[in-house]
């Protein structure tokens, strides 16, 4: 008993470390669960790859008729597509199953997570961890590789550095959208479709150049739901393109700041959502 309360105190020390630890343990369990059906895993991963690759096929078909889209040539659109797909794919792989929270709320199984000594956010994030989503990341990475191979970029050190930073920050921004969407499900349990509009819809939007969209939409995607920081702004810098909305050049380097801010806001939303659940139980 003395030992267990000491363990209790130790657990309380660092929620972040605890969360990551719980996340890894649960995700590993889901991977092993998936591997109980190897053939099914191989098929769904391939399916995930093929289904997401259709998005790029659509772009290829368009370019069979036109030479440029909003002033962007095929390799440049592929660059946008690759950045967006890999960022989104990483977030989707890591915590994409959070949109199943609504189901757990409806059938009451969230309670089984609440009686475990681990942060609930980490447990929900790792819930139904699906390795098949590597399919999307893989196809995004292939398109990005193709873009880097074909597009004519005047590489400099800042541009090289910006690439990994943009990918990770983009994943962070999408991750924040997933968390915020899940938090919203505490209030509206069937909101996963609305969330999909921002996540899956968002990544589709980002696969095209900002120049083909209306100013209002671009403004919304920059200042309200800052998805433009995932790829449009960093890509404008790397490709030496004019910035959407006439923004200054340095904004290309702000994605990490935006990601951290979004993450913090999403975290607050999650806490508020969980508090609502624990006071209403539904």
């Amino acid at each position, binding site marked *: 008993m003395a030992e267990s*309360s000491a*363990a*209790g105190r130790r657990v309380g020390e660092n929620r972040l470390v605890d969360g990551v630890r719980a996340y890894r343990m649960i995700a590993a369990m889901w991977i*092993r669960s998936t591997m109980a059906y190897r053939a099914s895993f191989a098929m769904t991963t391939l399916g995930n790859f093929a289904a997401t690759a259709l998005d790029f096929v659509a772009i290829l078909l368009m370019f069979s008729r036109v030479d440029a889209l909003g002033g962007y040539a095929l390799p440049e659109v592929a660059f946008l597509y690759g950045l967006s797909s890999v960022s989104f794919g990483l977030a989707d792989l890591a915590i994409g199953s959070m949109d199943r929270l609504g189901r757990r709320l409806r059938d009451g199984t969230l309670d*089984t997570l609440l009686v475990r000594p681990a942060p609930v956010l980490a447990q929900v994030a790792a819930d139904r961890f699906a390795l098949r989503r590597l399919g999307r990341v893989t196809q995004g990475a292939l398109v990005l590789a193709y873009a880097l191979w074909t597009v004519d970029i005047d590489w400099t050190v800042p541009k090289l550095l910006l690439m990994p930073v943009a990918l990770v920050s983009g994943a962070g921004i999408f991750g924040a959208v997933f968390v915020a969407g899940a938090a919203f499900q505490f209030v509206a349990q069937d909101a996963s479709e609305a969330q999909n509009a921002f996540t899956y819809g968002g990544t589709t939007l980002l696969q095209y150049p900002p120049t083909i969209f209306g100013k209002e939409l671009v403004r919304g995607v920059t200042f309200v739901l800052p998805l433009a920081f995932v790829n449009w702004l960093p890509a404008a810098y790397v490709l030496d393109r004019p910035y959407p909305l006439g923004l200054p050049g340095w904004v290309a380097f702000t994605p990490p700041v935006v990601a951290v801010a979004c993450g913090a806001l999403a975290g607050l939303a999650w806490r508020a959502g969980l508090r609502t659940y624990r006071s209403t139980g539904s």
Partner: protein
Amino acid sequence: MDSAGDSAFGDGAFIEVDRVEKVFDVRRKTGFLKRERRQVRAVDSISFTVPRGEMVGYIGPNGAGKSTTIKMLTGILTPSGGRLRVAGIDPSRERSRLAHRIGVVFGQRTTLWWDLPLIDSYRLTHRMYRIPDARYRANLDRCVELLELGALLDVPVRQLSLGQRMRGDIAAALLHDPEVLYLDEPTIGLDVVSKARVRAFLRDLNAERGTTVLLTTHDLQDIEQLCSRVMVIDQGRLMYDGPLAGLHEAGESERTLVVDLERELPPIDAPAPARVVRVEGPRQWLAFPAAQSAAPLVARIAAEYPLVDLSVREPDIEAVIAKMYEERATA
């Protein structure tokens, strides 16, 4: 935050519930965009204490507030009012810390990993609860032996029967040596043999380890065989708190003696308060107070009538509570 710890309560009150209430805002659609807000008191100023090592049955009809109480005791729900302590911890404020000291079994929601061998779920618990290796092994061995899980450890959970899974779930809730175990309908849907096994295990656990047990159930036999004390909740209020025998008295519940005679006969002339309530051919039904032994009645009938067979039916909890409720209403 109250961090007085266990010492503040000693062994006197391991679970302390003092005028705890839970009020839900229920919103109902009454028309297009029109909503009516209504407050529902799921738990209405309940007070009780449970000393360390007691086994308590917590019963009541569906929607009476049982689950809401358990959810507050486990830290899932935050009470709207009152004071609540488990092992000196305020559950809703220190949910994670409390989790190390309690075990919870949700009868109809397994926490085991469906597609993985049973042992894998235990290994996860081992790591998630940071159970020291030696203790984990000792506890697992004990559970495996007493719950007869040896042959099941390498079987994927989806292939287990309901009874096997329930035993698996109970073991999972005990690997970290919880001081209190909450069981929500632990025998629901189980066959007679599985029920007996689960009950025997819980009795041993309580006797040998002194684990405090709080269980909700619809099965009166669970209470009879396990609990020295029973609490009845209805419409959010504690209606009864005491020994089971007292509940029968309070509810004036009746058991039924079913007798099969050799041939059709007029209603048996039974000594009051027992009386015949139904006759159907050679079979007759007699009602008698549940607190009273059936033996004298059976002896008398056997002596005076051509008896072929007989059985005793226990009153079910719903009937007892319904009866008790009527009494209160008319009193």
